[in-house]
């Protein structure tokens, strides 16, 4: 990472720590904010958060590793999460899954080379009456079929 980038990241984290507070109970919110903005929480970001909150970096890492929406490895600009739980599975998730993989040329758990999309599975999204369902970032898409899913994916930047 360039020095300027590091400085910017530190500055941004400091701003977030100010916004949410440096008490332990703000940690998850700060991690969520960093994840949202930088699509992952880098080693450097973890150290900075730990330093500013006065906790050990391992504590920060241990929290990140617990939550499936937080990651230490860079993700794409858009994270697509396809529900693989029972109701969506019965409603035709397999066909959507295949179409999406083919269209993007990557498997689930991978990110496109241009960093546009990361594909992931997720468990029940609470949309079981309207499956198959997926999230793109925080938005939810339901009643999917393979063609629709691919069209939606092709529209995101």
């Amino acid at each position, binding site marked *: 990472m360039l020095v300027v980038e590091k400085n910017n990241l530190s500055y941004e984290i400091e701003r977030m720590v100010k916004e949410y507070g440096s008490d*332990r109970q703000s940690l998850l919110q700060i991690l*969520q904010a960093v994840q949202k903005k930088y699509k992952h929480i880098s080693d450097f970001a973890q150290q900075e958060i730990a330093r500013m909150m006065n906790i050990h970096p391992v504590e920060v890492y241990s929290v990140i590793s617990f*939550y499936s929406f937080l990651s230490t490895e860079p993700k794409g600009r858009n994270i697509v999460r396809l529900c693989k*739980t*029972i*109701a969506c599975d019965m409603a035709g998730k397999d066909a959507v899954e295949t179409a999406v993989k083919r269209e993007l040329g990557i498997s689930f758990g991978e990110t496109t080379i241009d960093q546009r999309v990361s594909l992931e599975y997720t468990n029940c999204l609470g949309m079981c009456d309207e499956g198959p369902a997926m999230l793109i970032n925080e938005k939810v898409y339901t009643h999917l079929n393979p063609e629709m899913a691919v069209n*939606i994916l092709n529209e*995101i930047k």
Partner: protein
Amino acid sequence: METTLKTSKKRTGPVLFSNYQQAYGIKKAIELGRENILLELKDSGLKGRGGAGFSTATKWMLSAAANAEKKFIVCNADEGEPGTFKDRVLLLEYPELVFDGMVIAGFTIGAKIGIVYLRGEYEYMLPLLEGFLNNMKEENLLGKNILEKEGFDFDINIRLGSGAYVCGEETALIESLEGYRGEPRNRPPFPVNTGYLGYPTVVNNVETLASIPHIIYKGGEWFKKNGTDKSKGSKLFSVSGDCGKPGVYELQWGTKINELLEIVEAKNCKAVQVGGASGVCLPKSQFNRSLAYEDAATGGSIIIFDENRNMLKILINFMEFFVEESCGQCTPCRVGNTKLLEGVKNIEKDEYTFSYINKLKELGKTMQAASKCGLGQSSPNSFISILDNFKEEIFYSNSKGIKNVKA
């Protein structure tokens, strides 16, 4: 690209979906005073709608009686049980019920802060919910001296989860709110004494809180006209799977599974999963059972499987869920779920003996007894009930006969 979410279904029902005007419950609560609210609540017989079914009046009384500098109300909106989506509908379409319920809870136990723990998957609801809370502030339904009642201060914050089913367990939820890994704590102590930041905390499900304004405004007597002796009131059922009309239904406690299947237009139904992946899978012969705390209990998830479904594939899906969602803190659950999943896969490959199956069922029973929290205690339910109730399909039929089915 706009979201494809639709929530325009017409909703009717005797209690939750009956008429309610925002703030009426809060006004009535102020009139009644703390003692009478608790009496009304006790009279209603309301039990928690989040799954465990603990008496809401008792929970509130315990924390009202606790002597502490601060207290908290937490709305559990982590809704992660497969097949459950009624809290989504309440939050999106009836936020006034949930939030008025929280305000009344705060008034009753003497808490000044309410926290909604909203699952990360529901982040799209934030703008709507926050807008709603702002309106409540403008109308003095939140903030200081609510409805001009001196000293009645209450505010609501929303905090997001980050994709972990186990955080719906109340002590894991509190750990998560405190900025830690969402690992369940030993209970006791219970949150009513030692909750968020060590202070007395009432954790209630979205639906439980949404029932409160109705009960306070219309009375415990009115509420308990619905339901059965042991299960008072009505219940929201999230119905999905093989049926003509999936969705959220408000029905009387005590409704028979058969009746529900008719209402949702389920045809050729072979099995019903009651209570989500943590619940049990019932065969046709048990469809005359009642949905109630005392019979087929459920937090509301009903998943319907028709004749064409392969029960073993369904079980694999459930067990994969638990292997992924176990927090890994205790051995019976962490190792047990992996063994059960391996077991179902071995059955699918036709590599099993009956003594192996019996050992796995024993393991399931050990997990029910020895796991630290409800996740590991209930994850063997599907395993045991599916292998017991559908043994003909799984073990006796020629495997070729079921190779072509979907699911």
